[in-house]
C-alpha cells in the first residue's frame, strides 16, 4: 500500500541530499514515528 501525492521542490533548492520527514496526520487513529527518508534533489 502506498500513500502518495505531489512534493514540490522549490526552484531555489540546492541539488544533493535532502530529507523528507514523514508522519501520520494528527487526527489519525494510529500513532506514527516520524521517519526521515533520504532523497536526492536533482536539477530541474
Amino acid at each position, binding site marked *: 500500500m502506498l500513500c502518495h501525492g*505531489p512534493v514540490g521542490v522549490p526552484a531555489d533548492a540546492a541539488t544533493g541530499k535532502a530529507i523528507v520527514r514523514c508522519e501520520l496526520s494528527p487526527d489519525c487513529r494510529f500513532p506514527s514515528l516520524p521517519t*526521515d527518508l533520504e*532523497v536526492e534533489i536533482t536539477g530541474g
Partner: protein
Amino acid sequence: MNRPGLAAAWIVGWIVATPAGAPREEGTKPPPAGPIDFAGVPRTIGGLPELAGPQPLYGLFLFGRSGETRVWAVLDSTDAKARAYDVLHLDLNADGDLTGEGERFAGKVESARGETSCRFTIGRFVQPGTPAEAPRVHTDFSVTWTPDRVGYRMNWDGGALTMGAYGPDGETYGTFSARPETAPIFVPGHDHPFQFETWLSRSLRRGRDNEFRVFVGNRGSVTGAFTCVDDRFLRPDEYVIATLLYKDRTSRERSVRYELRERC
C-alpha cells in the same frame, strides 16, 4: 532505519513554509529511534531439522511490543535437485526449536511467465507469548518464495492485512539470507507506531512537483524488510504529512510541508 548522523545535521532551526504560505522559523528535532533494537536481537536457533537442500535460507519474524517473541523461518528444498525452495520450517511456538510437530510446511510450486515460485500456506497463526485464555490469532498467513524475493502476508488479529517485504524499489524487495547471523528481521502487524519507506521516490527534481510515494508500516532490520498495511487501512481523512528538509543555494536550511492523501 534511523540515520542519527544525518538526522543530527538537521537539528538546527529551519525556515518552514507551506506551499501557499510564507516561510517561518521552526525548530525541529531528529526523529526518535524505532521501537525495536535490531542489533540486539539474538540470532541463535535452538534446533534445526535435518535439512535436505544445498543452501537453507533464514528469515526472522518479531512479535510483541519490543519484538521479544522471535519466530524463525527457514526455507529448504526437498532435495538437492529441487527447482525451488519448497519446504518451510516455521517456529510456530517461538521456542527456538524448529523440529516441533506441525512446524514443517510443504509449499505449492508454480511457474508463470518463466518464473518459479512457491507458496506456503500457514493459515491460522496463534501469536506465541499471548495468553492461552485470550490468544491473539492472525489468519491467512502465507509465505511466498521466488528466486528474487520472499514475501509474506497475514490478516492481523483476523482483520486488516499486514504484508512484506518491501523496499524503495522492486530491486530491493527482501529475501532471506544464507546465514542466521545476517537473516533479515521482519516486524508484522499494527502494534507499533507506524514508520515509512519510499517507493520509487528517492530522486526529486528541483522546480517542479514530484509524485512522492511511501509505504506505511514497520521498518525491518535492513532495506527491503519493510512490512506495510494495505490501501484500505487508513480512512480517507487520514494521510501522511511529508516535510521536505533541504538547503537552498545559499546553504540556508529550509523546509516545505505537503500532505500525501492519495492511495494505491
